[in-house]
């Protein structure tokens, strides 16, 4: 056998594919015709071997997300992944929610932003332990980042965990973090056609919070129209209209959270 490239093992080669069934009939060896004496330098084409993988590129993320989900189940933690465009009011909603629900359940927050500790500091001031993940150039949180944050948070059983995702309606839609529910926040200062422009995010969410309802008299946003668009991409989506600033409608949000699980 040629020691350099291993040719000569021929049928004995082993293809390892942990993500796939044991059917490797299509694995092939190409350019594998070496009739030469040994002891010379290799001037021939190196053999090429075709390896069939058929592996989902998001599989690594999805496996970690599944492990995170089992962690939440085991500890009876309700985990909500909050997604939105920048500036829709996620952090203000969380500050109010912590103030209101902190006597009902222990609350933790994982904050995702490209830079700064500002949001984590706001959350800590509101009274909940927070871990900030700075994604640097990254545009979303992934399941591995959440797993790392969970190791630091030391979450108690029967608690609530909010993940405030990076403000971005595109990329976070692709990444399952292991959350129990996904909550998309839009505000009345945005276009009511946003669900049509960013359908993936609305399609993968369970609840849509329409925030800044106190500004409705000053803008052209029609809630019914926004809901119609959102339902056209996700007929099962639930809606709650709130103003985190004036607390209007926030009780509906608190009730929704508590109805997801007995805390």
């Amino acid at each position: 056998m040629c020691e350099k490239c291993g040719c000569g093992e021929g049928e004995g080669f082993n293809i390892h594919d942990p993500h796939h069934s044991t059917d490797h009939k299509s694995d092939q060896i190409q350019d594998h015709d070496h009739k030469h004496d040994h002891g010379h330098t290799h001037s021939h084409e190196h053999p090429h071997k075709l390896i069939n993988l058929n592996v989902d590129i998001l599989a690594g993320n999805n496996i970690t997300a599944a492990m995170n989900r089992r962690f939440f189940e085991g500890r009876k933690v309700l985990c909500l992944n909050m997604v939105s465009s920048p500036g829709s009011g996620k952090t203000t909603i969380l500050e109010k929610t912590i103030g209101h629900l902190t006597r009902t359940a222990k609350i933790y927050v994982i904050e995702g932003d490209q830079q700064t500790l500002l949001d984590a500091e706001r959350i800590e001031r509101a009274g909940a332990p927070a871990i900030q993940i700075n994604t640097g150039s990254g545009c979303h949180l992934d399941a591995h980042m959440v797993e790392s944050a969970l190791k630091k948070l030391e979450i108690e059983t029967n608690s609530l965990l909010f993940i405030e995702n990076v403000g971005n309606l595109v990329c976070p839609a692709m990444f399952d973090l292991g959350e129990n529910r996904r909550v998309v926040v839009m505000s009345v200062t945005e276009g009511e056609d946003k669900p049509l422009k960013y359908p993936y995010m609305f399609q993968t969410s369970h609840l849509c919070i329409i925030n800044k309802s106190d500004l409705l008299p000053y803008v052209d946003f029609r809630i019914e129209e926004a809901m119609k668009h959102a339902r056209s991409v996700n007929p099962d989506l639930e809606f709650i209209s709130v103003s985190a600033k004036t607390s209007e409608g926030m009780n509906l949000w608190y009730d929704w959270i508590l109805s997801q699980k007995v805390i």
Partner: protein
Amino acid sequence: MHELSLAAEVIKLVEKEAGLNHASAISEITIEVGNISGIEAEPFESALRILTEGTMLEKSSLNIVKIKARGNCLNCKSDFEMNFRMDTCPQCGAFPSEITGGNEFRVVSMLIED
């Protein structure tokens, strides 16, 4: 933007497989990208080309196979090609349709050198 981190994920994934197969280099990879998967094939390919520098994929040829989604109308049963997830049936205008394909985002195969 997520195309960049997904390209990094691809490199990690195929380099691991290449290592398990004692490969010296990867000469070709084939990746399927569905047109409604949420991944744009062109920026993904650009990201992959940038990130492969200095990896086992440096000289690899990238074979990106684009897959078009097909809709099967729940109303009139006609079968049609979809450009967007929310496309209505071109025959009767109904929505939604049963979608087959188009969500693919996977490494199909790679050609390694011993």
